């Protein structure tokens, strides 16, 4: 009997939600265009970036959906929320085709994550064509909010400018004046090189030389570049490689004993998964910039505990960023009372917020960069770790203002 009543009530609520008259914005019930909300996660699930985001990023988004429903009620978004996913294999053409398919055939309302800058830029174009939302979390290129910016694309977690401002300037100010930069030769690496060069020179240092390494690097060998570093004798070797490539660079940097020749290693982009791969002590003392650390405070720890229970690892900032971005998107849909892309864009632009991942966040309306604080972190030696995955400590904060590229430098002309 009780079940029948519950069912009846549920049906009534559903009827009210879907067809029951027009409820104004913010008025509680949400009206969805096609009766459901579809969030698509497109990322690398088989290659070099699969561990730092990959399948566990999909889990993070699912967690966000579950938690959102637990907080606001099962039908708070006016219908079911689906999470779909695809592996883009770090190939821009695959990424774009998948995005097209998801927007058109699967009625995706939002695409999330998308590491690999070249693939990320491809999807930005598709989002504009389809007039559907795209919040990028794991790609780093500043072009997403610069030359390639558009009305439907948001850049959420970090970019090369933020990394360079944090690591480039801090290391230079600590006395690492002359740099030799090596970077993977594709959109991400080239952008990193540019951002770091600017930051280092701006802080009074100089870049002796920079060299691109092939991407993907099939031989896994970086010895020729490291040998060159030994010859050039810079104070700092700036390694802009990411994921598996970075692990190879650091392993061989240690092998060539460049540290003993007073060549310091500065790493552009470091994920916890890289530290797992090499062992904490191989990185000990390294300074790096990150938007988030799982151990930074209680709020973050809470999320990290839940994530650990579900996946067996502590979240990288990419995992946390996907959770947070999915959450803020659902909040925007709820506030606006619709999943209509233009209405959600309006809700997001200029929005100020804080959550466990984003501190002092503002969605900059002019270029859709999500301004927020960044952290300067340092890898601890293993002897200081209190538990597994306790890799780093926070040594400084970069304010949202300083971590964000000035609007004028980006050259974003938002197409109408």
């Amino acid at each position, binding site marked *: 009997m009780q079940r029948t009543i519950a069912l009846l009530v549920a049906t009534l609520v559903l009827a009210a939600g879907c067809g029951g008259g027009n409820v104004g914005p913010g008025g509680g019930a949400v009206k969805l265009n096609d009766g459901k909300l579809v969030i698509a996660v497109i990322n690398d699930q088989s290659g070099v970036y699969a561990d730092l985001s990959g399948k566990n990023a999909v889990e993070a988004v699912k967690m966000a959906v579950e938690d959102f429903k637990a907080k606001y009620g099962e039908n708070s978004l006016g219908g079911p929320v689906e999470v779909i996913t695809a592996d883009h294999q770090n190939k821009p053409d695959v990424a774009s085709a998948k995005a097209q398919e998801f927007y058109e055939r699967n009625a995706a309302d939002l695409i999330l994550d998308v590491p690999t800058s070249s693939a990320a830029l491809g999807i930005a174009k598709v989002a504009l064509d389809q007039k559907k939302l795209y919040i990028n979390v794991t790609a780093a290129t500043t072009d997403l909010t610069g030359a390639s910016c558009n009305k439907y694309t948001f850049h959420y977690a970090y970019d090369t400018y933020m990394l360079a401002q944090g690591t480039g300037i801090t290391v230079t100010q600590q006395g690492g004046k002359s740099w030799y930069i090596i970077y993977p030769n594709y959109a991400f690496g080239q952008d990193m090189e540019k951002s770091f060069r600017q930051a280092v020179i701006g802080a009074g240092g100089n870049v002796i030389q920079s060299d691109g390494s092939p991407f993907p690097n099939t031989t896994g060998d970086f010895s020729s570049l490291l040998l060159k570093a030994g010859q050039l004798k810079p104070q700092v070797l700036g390694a802009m490689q990411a994921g*598996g490539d970075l692990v190879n660079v650091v392993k061989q940097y240690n092998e060539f004993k460049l540290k003993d020749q007073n060549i310091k290693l500065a790493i552009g982009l470091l994920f916890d998964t890289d530290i797992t791969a090499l062992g904490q002590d191989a990185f000990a003392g390294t300074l790096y910039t990150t938007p988030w650390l799982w151990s930074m405070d209680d709020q973050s720890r809470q999320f990290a505990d839940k994530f650990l229970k579900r996946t067996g690892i502590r979240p990288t900032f990419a995992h946390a960023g996907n959770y947070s971005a999915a959450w803020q998107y659902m909040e925007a849909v709820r506030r606006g009372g619709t999943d209509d892309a233009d209405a959600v864009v309006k809700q997001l632009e200029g929005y100020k917020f804080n959550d466990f991942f984003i501190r002092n966040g503002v969605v900059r309306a002019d270029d859709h960069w999500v301004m927020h604080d960044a952290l300067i972190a340092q890898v601890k030696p293993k002897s200081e770790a209190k538990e597994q995955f306790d890799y780093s400590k926070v040594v400084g904060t970069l304010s949202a203002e300083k971590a964000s590229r000035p609007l004028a430098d980006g050259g974003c002309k938002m197409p109408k």
Partner: protein
Amino acid sequence: MEYVALQLFNGLANGSFYALLSLGLAVIFGVLRVVNFAHGAFYMLGAFGAYLLLQDFSVGFWPALAIAPLAIGVAAMGLERLLIRRLYGLDPLYNFLLTFGLTLIIQDGMRLRFGLQGQPYPAPAELGGSLSLGPVGYPVYRLFVIVFSLAVCVLVWYLIERTRVGMVVRASTERPELTRALGINVDRWVTPVFGFGVALAALGGVLAAPMRNVSPLMGSELIIFTFAVVVIGGMGSIVGAVVAGFLVGILASLAAVFDPALENVLAFALMAVVLLVRPAGLFGSVDRT
């Protein structure tokens, strides 16, 4: 100039891996006429073998150098008995596909268990230092890799060219019917030869563990390169495999002096040229293949 000279050592170190891997491929192809696509996967298993021995049994680098290749070689012999053997009578393409499938299974199985990011493995303490060669230090471990692989290559060459076992193996490769007619059991040698070739790949894997990212994908990245080396050297030619391995390593490293991007391209450019000029490879003879 010193930089170029030191690049030579890098080339030799990289070439050591190409030589060990293509040597195994050549031995297997010579006797079994099987293009073993799973070779890269066995190389990866060798590296993981070293890692697991250290992690779970606290067995260090030196014992691992013997244990891992032996264990993986024996397992490969089982695989030959169980699967590969069944396809000898058919087009070589079938075994190529079979070993390709095995690669995917092994690789994804490891991925499921270990993830993609890789596992830490330190160089043995005795070889951790660096030797001062001119202005920069050169890792002792790399020098060891060069010397060790050269020694292995010479040993294998001696085994095949100068011993009775090698003679039988060579005979069964070149004229299997005639060898059989002389009362020699050719089939007896097929399984151990496969195991031996695979063990060489695993040995390469153990050697690579201290200097490369130990990840399930490390083999698939290298195997394509190795195939290019085998084609350059001549399919099934032992000397060709070794010479081409070191040659490609050195040339690729020297090319990297001019432009780092060339390092990846060179082997394939070289392969194209060799195929045009000498289709059987540098050391291959047309009638054997």
